[in-house]
């Protein structure tokens, strides 16, 4: 996948992207959450 044969590497590659995107979504959803 993505030109990378070893699943241990492309999973890490995709996980980096997804976790960064998850941080953006979490921060946006919680922007007015919980003074």
């Amino acid at each position, binding site marked *: 996948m*993505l*030109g*990378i*044969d*070893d699943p*241990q*590497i492309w999973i*890490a*590659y995709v*996980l*980096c*992207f997804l*976790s*960064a*995107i*998850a*941080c*953006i979504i*979490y*921060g*946006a959803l*919680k*922007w*007015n*959450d*919980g*003074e």
Partner: protein
Amino acid sequence: MTLNTPLLGISVLIYMIVVFYLGWIGYKQTKNTDDYMLAGRKVNPFVLALSYGAAFISTSAIIGFGGYAGAFGMGVLWLVAMNIILGIFIAFIVFGSRTRRMGANLKAVTFPELIGKRYRSRFIQGFSGALITIFMPLYAGGVLIGGARFMEVALGIEYNTAVMLLAVIVAAYVITGGLIAVMYTDALQGALMFLGMGILFVLTYAKLGGVVKAHQALTDMAPLVPANLAAIGHTGWTSMPALGTPVWWTLVSTIILGVGIGVLAQPQLAVRFMTVKDTRTLKRAVLSGGPFIFMMAGVAYIVGALSNVYFMDTRGVIALDAAGGNIDKIMPEYIYSAMPDYFVIFFLLTLLAAAMSTLSSQFHTMGTAIGHDFYREFLMKGKLGNTITITRMGIATTIIISVALAYKLPPGIIARATAIFFGLCAAAFLPMYTGGIFWKRMNRQGATASLLVGTFASLFWLTFVNGKVASSLGISKAIFGVDTLLTGTWTFVDPILVATPLAFIVAIIVSLMTRPDPEEHVELCFKK
């Protein structure tokens, strides 16, 4: 190669003027101890995220670990995933909110003070402060070397002068402006780093024909792995090293776990959770913190690995050969060769920002550790003068130690010095920090035992078992006549895999076997 152009000189000058302006604002806004030590406990979420990320990511991550990816491939991307999930998400949401609340309840102004007050122990505060004072200069010395080396290359300044110049510039705004100056300048430096690495990411993929084409070309290079590296487990730049080989153990235990877990117990990072006024700020900071780490570490490691394709296309050699066999020179060599001139200048500023933002946090943390935690609170039992004055003297002292180390440390030490400090922090601090904020039953005896066991087990493993460190120290050879007491796979295993679990077990057993801390004190610590 010297890029001594007027444009670079003007860029550095403008950057320095802005840094000093922010340092001056920090000085003007510092009215009391909370301001100097914790930036007044009211930091903005974007400043927190950029400051946390910029303090965490130094030239060590970009040059040292980026070069490691150039030599050994993309397996190091697991560290990026760990850094985002554990180092940002879990750290801010789970550890951060409890740390902030307990720090405010106990009126703690440093990480060792938070732990010391949680367990009502000046010994824990003093010992932790001493540990930071003794070992953090090793990490700061490594970052100082990284910063000074490229000032030498880019500005044509002599190396020893560059070390001194860098230390004096950072010292000036840290000593005068305290943590407000540190975090404001961090935010500027973090923004520069984000932009620089973002451009590098796009330019690299564009140059190599797109994402899939670049990766496929790197995958197809697997047969070109040098025989000596293949023999110790290297299988290619888009595959993990062979399970259980020396390369695999170094990657998984020292780099992925050592740095990935060690980040949770970094005093200069944990203290930032106490600089915000509420939990909402921590949640907001996740929004920019996650992408920032991806853009720093993720891009450095992907580009480092892909530099092999560029060097093969243009020179017919792999990256390690293009850099003359020196891992630390892979990234600079790639940037100088592959990138347009205007970007090389901007990237040098990015690296200068990365070095300065990490150094400023280290100087502030070391100064508070020796001045406030060790000298004022432990040795003098809190009965001594003004915290800010003593901390300023502490910062000046530890800067001198770091500069001396930067002159003395051997070459190629940057990434290893960083990993050693991260691993030591994980073993010494993580059990009593985690237990302290999550487990009410954890008591002073358990914390003291885990601090001592974690520290000395880590140091013992480094001195007598870990192949690279033990053989270069020579202590084991002098006492026992052998480089390492154990042989085989054990010599590649990082101390974090041995000392940290041991310290956790000791913390739990000793806490359960001894009397709990007074209930009213524990209630104060955990008060909502």
